[in-house]
């Protein structure tokens, strides 16, 4: 459910925006350059005060997909119960987007997780480190071209023998 004024305000500010709807959920597709401004508009003018989630989809080998990565922001307005999904598509090697931490402090760990799993850099993030995987990890395992069983990372440990315990 979304207020028509929200869609009208976004369309007026960003004419190139794409809209779609699925089972009552409204989704907007913006370009990477307009992403931060669109999020800022939603927060400041339309009252989207809650950042529900930031996640990413790898569309490698996906049917009819033109872009590699889809970055998804799920926003909610806690006063009117409006919800919206804002998406931006990214392609290698230019996997950089502006960080949303200035808008919602909760974006901090969400962006770190997207960086950890997909390798998308968030420009202006105060502390862009891996959050789940060990710091020494060198790959981005939620990308579709990463093998399920890894590249030997889980074997790279010293082996403790009984007598050296």
């Amino acid at each position: 459910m979304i207020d028509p004024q929200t869609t009208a305000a976004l369309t007026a500010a960003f004419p190139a925006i794409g809209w779609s709807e699925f089972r009552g959920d409204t989704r907007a597709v913006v370009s990477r350059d307009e992403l931060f401004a669109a999020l800022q508009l939603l927060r400041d003018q339309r009252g989207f005060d809650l950042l529900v989630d930031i996640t990413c989809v790898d569309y490698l080998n996906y049917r009819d997909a033109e872009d590699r990565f889809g970055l998804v922001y799920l926003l909610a307005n806690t006063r009117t119960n409006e919800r919206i999904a804002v998406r931006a598509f990214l392609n290698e090697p230019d996997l950089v987007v502006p960080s949303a931490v200035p808008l919602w402090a909760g974006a901090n760990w969400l962006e770190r997780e997207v960086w950890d799993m997909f390798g998308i850099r968030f420009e202006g993030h105060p502390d862009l480190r891996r959050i789940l995987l060990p710091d020494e990890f060198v790959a981005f395992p939620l990308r579709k071209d990463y093998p399920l069983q890894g590249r030997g990372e889980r074997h790279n440990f010293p082996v403790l023998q009984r007598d050296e315990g």
Partner: protein
Amino acid sequence: MAVELPENVVVSKLDELASWCRKNSLWPMPFATACCGIELMATGASRHDLARFGAEVFRFSPRQCDLMIVAGRVVMKMLPVLQRIWQQMHEPKWCISMGACASTGGVFDTYSVVQGIDRFLPVDMYVPGCPPRPEQLIQAIIDLQDKIQREGTIGGREFATRSRQQAPHALLELPVITLPRGVSHFPQGVRVND
């Protein structure tokens, strides 16, 4: 020459006496990371009553324990912690790998889950099950007690001779990641293809 002993004196070997003491006062270290940990708690609780076998005192400090029960899957970020805890435990010490995940990785054959802690640690007993019933864990502890009684020596000589199980050959042939220059993956180095 027959020596008359009073009825309340028993003659034994010192090794067996030490093993008898050790096996009946195991102090488990609950390394519980997943659902097996719930069964581990049930084992220690009143219904199954691990106290019957002298192993009811769970301690959360490795320095007070001599039996590590690894209950649940171990991810690669956790394995250095597990190894550190194992090294902090005093000898004599034993290890039970509880459940399918700790023993083999279980269904989690993914990049981040260690495929059996026995690749990197010495394990004395494996408990199958997903998760195992408390009776199974108790059986493993009873079997471990038998093992301690059979093999134990007061000086811990049996620990010097035993070593880790060899990993299956197919696993040794898995490709090992090659790192870019200047990046140290794990400072201890790669030992899997030794």
